[in-house]
């Protein structure tokens, strides 16, 4: 042992470790630096929520009035017959189908009369809507696991037994990841 100490072998070995450690640090720093320049995130929240809303408004299987004879959808006219909780689930689950479990999007639709009284309110993907709504209200909006929301209000005609003016409020919630 004394001989080893004399020759500084331990010191040299320690220096090796230090050098290797230093090299590894440098390598990782470089890799992290390079990775930080690689952009892999694309935020499509706005486009996705807008398309969803357009889909709800324009789809013939959705809540807008659809004339079967001339195969035309009237996007500004909400068909009250189709705007019921019972049928809306089927209509939306068939026409906006995200797979067996929808972890992608949830929304609520509220139909109001001219005086802003609620006529009817329905929810698409209600389980996740209530869960995500709580997160949104708790301002848990950033990063993976957070959610984003978009609200829109449309002036519409409501077609029941007669045509009435009213508003349709749509709130769309999407998870960040």
């Amino acid at each position, binding site marked *: 042992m004394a001989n080893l100490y004399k*020759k500084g*072998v331990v010191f*040299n070995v320690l220096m*090796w470790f230090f*050098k*290797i450690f230093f*090299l590894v640090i*440098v*390598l990782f720093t*470089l*890799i992290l630096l*390079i990775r930080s320049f*690689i*952009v*892999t*995130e*694309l935020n*499509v929240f706005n*486009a*996705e929520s807008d*398309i*969803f809303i*357009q*889909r709800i408004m*324009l*789809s*013939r*299987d959705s809540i807008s009035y659809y*004339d079967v*004879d*001339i*195969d*035309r*959808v009237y*996007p500004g006219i909400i068909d009250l017959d189709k705007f019921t909780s019972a049928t809306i689930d089927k209509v939306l*689950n*068939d*026409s*906006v*189908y*995200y*797979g067996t479990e929808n972890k*992608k*999007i949830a929304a609520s639709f509220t139909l109001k009369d001219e005086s802003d009284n609620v006529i009817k309110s329905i929810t698409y993907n209600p389980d996740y809507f209530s869960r995500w709504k709580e997160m949104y209200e708790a301002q848990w909006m950033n990063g993976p696991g957070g959610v984003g929301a978009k609200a829109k209000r449309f002036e519409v005609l409501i077609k029941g037994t007669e045509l009435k003016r009213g508003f349709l409020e749509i709130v769309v919630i999407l998870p960040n990841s």
Partner: protein
Amino acid sequence: MLKRGVFLGKKGQGEMEEEVYSTLIQVAILVFVLVSLGLYLKSVRDNTVFEKIYLSRDIALLMNSIYAAPENIGYVYAAGETNLTKFTFKSQENYVVVNDKNSISNQEMFYKYATDLSFHEEFPLIEESKILTFVKNDNTLKVGTEGTGKLNALICQDINTKSSNWKTKVIIDPGHGSDINKPDDPGDVGYSTDAVKESVFTTQVATALKSFGYMLTRDYNYYLPLRDRISAAKNSDVIISLHVGNYSQDKNIALAFVSAESLKKAESRKLACLILNIFMTQFNFESIAIVPVFHSELLPDDPKQILMQDKIAVFLEIENINNKASVKALKPSEIASAINDALNQYYG
């Protein structure tokens, strides 16, 4: 006693040896680190993870948009400057899956989209294609690499319209009309350019149709008031009104207007559909469409008032007057022949 050699220093055995080995190991580690870094940089340079993420999201959003659109759609996706040939595309359980077949990592990127269960979707594995084509027609969405094909061929309603002795029930109404030789003719040339006058064109098509045995509201180019046209068509079952469109863009299109409130709207739509499909097949139209007309929105003197609600009625706008080359290229006899074919299909 060892002699002094390469690895034997003056100071004693192994000292030089130790230093050389130490240096060699350090150099080896350095080389390893540099090679690793080089390989990593190469993999970063060759990596297409961003493109894969971009493409999967872009195509998923496009699928959503296409499903959201109420009408038939044909869309050619070329992704700008991104070379699509090195990527593979497929759909898997509501995900657009994109991979780079040349990448070492072989890591798929995916993004979810919403389908419509009332649609039949075909999205096979696509490889080495410069474009992706999306065709939504009726209740089918096809994703492929071929051209959009008969993209605008409308799906005509399957209703029974067979009949015999039908020619005498059809009246052709050439729009507008102006006789410059008649001093009392107020003249209604319609849209006109130095190449074509609408009243002349519609008269030519109508007179060509007359040779097939159809009745006309007017058989030469003169002004005929709307009420006289309606009166002339009163005893007919089918009215086809001929016009030329006027659209600011230089596109060549054919539109068929049908009444949305007519008792015969389904029949009118079927006839319009057949005419437009033949137009699309035989002529160079970029786009065709059936447009519903609401009578409450029409002015009293609107020529579309000819779309009487108790008759099968189609108001045709053939071509865009501003597309001079296309309008000039249209031959009235061929247009007439196409309309005759459509009527034969309708009643046959």
